[in-house]
């Protein structure tokens, strides 16, 4: 179940802790998608601590809310949140990408709490449409959320799914775009521009909201229900790739860069300072 008692400051502290954890496991594994995990972690924080009606105990319950991470490469963000929410013991994360580990470098159902194996881009939205459609057929109350990268939107399958979602009026579906504006080659606007994103989704029949994807209150509000009754919702979350670690922010190489020992210590020092700032603000 969600934790409605958590304040925005409580969630901010969790976000800092999640950032520390995901950097630690990426450093330990020597592999991972650092920048995109840091850009979407605040979104996952709000989903799993405030919005999704799912717990380790209800992870297979038919009426649970569903989350599908279409941008599967940011799996480290998902793993650390699921671990902290008790879906599996956190020690497992030390085996990320190790031989025989269930913690594969993209989401797999081998890990408790993961709904669907993802990693190939342009898959999650169609899967989520199917889940939401089943919910409508069964007159169930659950909601379906999926997280897509903005570079991922170049995959044509997303637009097949977008048409289908509005055709079936799936207002139990929310697609979140982690709009960090960078992909592995460079700026998305230079690789293959998807602008204007809001108008594209609106023209496909979606309700669209644009928010600061690091503003926990704004994220919470955007996830509170369909933007427009009878339409699927697209939340364009404007984020910063590498958010929270100054030397990673907006730098393409951190798409899948792994910090050196010195960089890791420097990043942790920044995050410690952020934690201290939150504690001071509270006291």
């Amino acid at each position: 179940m969600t934790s409605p008692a958590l304040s925005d400051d409580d969630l901010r502290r969790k976000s800092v802790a999640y950032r520390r954890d995901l950097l630690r496991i990426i450093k330990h594994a020597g592999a991972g998608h650092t920048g995109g995990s840091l850009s979407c972690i605040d979104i996952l924080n709000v989903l799993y601590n405030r919005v999704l009606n799912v717990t380790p105990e209800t992870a297979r319950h038919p009426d649970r809310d569903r989350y599908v991470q279409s941008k599967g490469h940011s799996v480290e963000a998902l793993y650390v949140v699921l671990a902290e929410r008790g879906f599996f013991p956190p020690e497992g994360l030390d085996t990320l990408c190790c031989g025989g580990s269930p913690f594969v470098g993209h989401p797999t159902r081998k890990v408790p709490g993961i709904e669907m194996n993802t990693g190939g881009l342009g898959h999650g939205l169609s899967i989520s449409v199917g889940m939401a459609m089943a919910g409508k057929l069964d007159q169930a109350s659950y909601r379906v959320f999926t997280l897509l990268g903005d570079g991922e939107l170049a995959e044509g399958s997303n637009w097949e799914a977008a048409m289908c979602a509005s055709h079936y009026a799936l207002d139990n579906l929310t697609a979140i775009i982690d709009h960090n504006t960078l992909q592995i080659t460079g700026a998305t606007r230079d690789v293959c521009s998807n602008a204007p994103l809001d108008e594209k989704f609106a023209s496909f029949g979606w309700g669209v909201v644009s928010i600061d994807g690091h503003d926990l209150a704004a994220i919470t509000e955007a996830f509170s229900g369909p933007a427009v009754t009878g339409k699927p919702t697209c939340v364009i979350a404007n984020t910063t790739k590498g958010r929270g670690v100054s030397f990673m922010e907006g730098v393409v190489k951190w798409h899948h860069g792994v910090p050196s020992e010195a960089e890791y210590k420097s990043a942790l020092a920044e995050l410690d300072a952020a934690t201290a700032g939150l504690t001071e603000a509270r006291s």
Partner: protein
Amino acid sequence: MSAPAPSLYSEEAVARAKRLGLRLGRANLEVFADTLLEIATPDHNVLAVTSDSRGSGKLKPFGDALPRQIVEVGIAEQNLIGVSAGLASAGKTVFAVSPACFLATRSLEQIKNDVCYSDMPVTLVGISAGVSYGALGSTHHSLHDFAALRAIHNVTVVAPADNREAQTAVRWAAHHDRPVYLRFGKAPLYDLASAPAPNDPRDASLLRQGDDVAFIATGETVIHCLLAADRLAEQGVETTVLSVPCVKPLDETAILAACRGCRAVVTAEEHSVHGGLGDAVAALLLGSGVTPVFRATAIPDEDTYTGSQADIFRRYGLSMEGLADRASRALDAAGVAL
């Protein structure tokens, strides 16, 4: 779209079928649609998901009878499979129906990731498979689906040979909790026997037993092997005919039992010569130390001949006459005097 297919059978073949008491049935596609309707009528969780293919899938009666159980996604095969996986994850029994040529190519990554890797119990239904579309050309042929799907983990690949096998396969798939691919053509087929097909389509059926040559065949080529065997018998050739609906996993026991002791083995399939039943049987035999003269009969690796399904079958020896000739030559190579 295309005219009714010319007969796949010569006058001699028709006469032999009649003499053997074989009944000319319907297209497997029609049997699929009827069987699915029968399964879905009492169970609202059974869904047909289509990509503008309810007409070619013979699913109009299904849609009319059970409008809430047919999901139309339009001409969007990638979305077809992703949506099907999502529906299956929520407990639906899903039959995803699309022409085999598009299903096994356009949506191959969705099949690999969303269905097979994610282990969603979706039944993938490739309609108008093989060269059913005939002269519409290679865009509409599926001569690669066995090869593509055999290389993907966690999917059972089934090509029923007649109406009996088709009905069994659909019923079995509806209750199977793993991914399945079913492949159906649209030409009327003779039933291979009067007895029912095995309840599990992974089991091969021994239709005839002899120890000179063994035909190991799948899908809509099996009948031509059975008729060829009848022709060969008149030349004193004793023939085994094994119908292998399941290309993956293979019924290895039945295939080895059928081939051991035979001087020659001829495989037949409506598929590319690469990556299908022929390759699978060859690997099995060689790996098991069973080494008869071996001939794969399939569509060669070339720009496919233009024509109806019947024209293409005849061109490449997938007819009674062609298969009998192939078997005779194989026996000749094995040193058996006819």
